[in-house]
Each structure stands twice: as C-alpha cells, then as structure tokens.
C-alpha cells in the first residue's frame, strides 16, 4: 500500500485551519478591547492636570494646540498649551464643548466631508487632508486664507469660509457651497480643532514639514 502523506490528509488541514481561525478570532476580540482603551476620550480634569490622552476632552478647544518633535517616537506629538480664545471665549464648559463637537461631527457626516477630504485617515484625497487642518499656517494670523476672508481669528476665518466656500478661490478644485449654517460652521471648526489635538502617531506624515505647522516655525 502506498504510504499516505500528512500533506494530503484532510484532518491535518482541517485542524490547522481551525487553529488559525480560532486564534485569529480571539486575537481580534482582544485587539478590539485593547483599542478601546487607546481611543477613549480624556476628561477636562485630565487636561487641567496635564494627563496625556491620545484623544483629549472636547474642552481642548479652550487651549492652544501645537506640535513638537519627539525624537524617541520619531514624529511630531501634540502639545496642549496655554488657554486660547475660541470664538471669543476660553471657558467652554465640558457640556458646551461636547455639544459643539457633536454638532460638528454630525455636520461633517451630513455634508459628507470625506467624499473629498481625509479625516484621521478615512476619506479621499481629492481635497486637502483635514486631520491637522487646524494647524495649517494658511489659516493663521499671517496666512493667506485668513486674510482672504477678512476675519481676525483663525476660527472665524474657517467658519466664514465653510459657509461660503465657493466665494473664495483656494484650490484649483474649489469647494462647493454645501449650505453650511453659521452654527454648523462653528461646530465644524471645533471638530477640526479637536481633531488636530488627537495623537495620531505622526499621521499625516508630512504635516510637520509644512512651514509654520510646528510651534509656528
């Protein structure tokens, strides 16, 4: 009788497949819970006590956000600095900030920003990546986009642009008018400011090389 090979034996492949599938399932379930610790939002108290969270509390909109190079991690990491005015206030409460952010998140979904832009790695590259858009020096005090809107602060300039994007020549592919209201625009800017404070392990890779994006340098 010919010698039977293990390689042509069904049971070997069945058991191997069961092991790999079973192990991968357990690993993925574990990773799900492991990730939830990484992405859970910090609290206002964390911000005040200087506790670093990958996703800070919504009240981060009351603070100045900059980045600095972390040589050990090999990329820029967010630094939550001193208080900063956001739409004329730096005392947005946890509830107010969370509500504003929620409005911005819903707005970004209903207007389908991701159809053209990228947010935290999700979306398209037809229009600029918005993950760290808040830090774009073009919206800063000497930036061309801020002066274009005639507003005196970054958040007001961004909100103005969002309400009437088709009036402002920004990009070869201009943003269409999406009927964003003043309130929604405020929410969207808060959403973008909060997003820029999220530690994304240096994503997007090139933003730190943009002049002015890190500590205004």
């Amino acid at each position, binding site marked *: 009788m010919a010698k039977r090979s293990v390689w042509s034996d069904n049971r070997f492949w069945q058991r191997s497949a069961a092991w790999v599938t079973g192990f991968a399932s357990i690993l993925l379930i574990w990773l799900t819970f*492991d990730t939830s610790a*990484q992405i859970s939002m910090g609290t206002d108290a964390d911000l005040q006590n200087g506790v670093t969270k990958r996703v800070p509390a919504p009240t981060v909109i009351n603070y100045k956000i900059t980045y600095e190079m972390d040589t050990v*991690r090999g990329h820029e990491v967010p630094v939550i600095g001193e208080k900063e005015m956001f739409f004329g206030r730096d005392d947005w409460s946890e509830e107010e900030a969370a509500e504003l952010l929620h409005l911005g998140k819903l707005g970004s979904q209903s207007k389908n920003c991701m159809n053209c832009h990228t947010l935290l790695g999700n979306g398209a590259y037809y229009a600029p990546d918005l993950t760290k858009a808040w830090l774009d020096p073009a919206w800063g005090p000497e930036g061309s986009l801020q002066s274009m809107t005639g507003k005196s602060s970054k958040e007001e300039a961004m909100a103005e642009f969002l309400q009437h994007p088709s009036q402002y020549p920004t990009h070869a592919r201009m943003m269409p008018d999406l009927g964003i209201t003043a309130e929604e625009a405020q929410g969207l800017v808060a959403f973008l400011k909060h997003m820029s404070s999220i530690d994304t392990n240096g994503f997007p890779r090139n933003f730190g090389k943009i002049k002015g994006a890190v500590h205004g340098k």
Partner: protein
Amino acid sequence: MMFEPFVDVVPSFFGWLNQGPLTLTIFLHTVIILPMFWIYKQEKARIEREG
C-alpha cells in the same frame, strides 16, 4: 539600538508587542506556525497507527 524604551501614550500589551514589524512577526509565527508543527506530528502518528 535593539531595544527602545516603551513610550506609547496609552501603554498596552499590543503596543509593546508591535514596536517594530519583526516583533509582531515573531509573535504571530510562534502562536500560529509552531502549533501547526504539533498538529502535523499528531496527524502523522495517527496515520502511521491506522496505516
């Protein structure tokens, strides 16, 4: 340097494990491939017993 201090924002087992591509590869090979050798040997012994 072969070993770097663990500097992740929120420490976790997988963060520690996946500091570089090789650490994850070694881990996955250990837990997936090595048991397959064991399954192979068991099946071989069974075939020899039955055959």
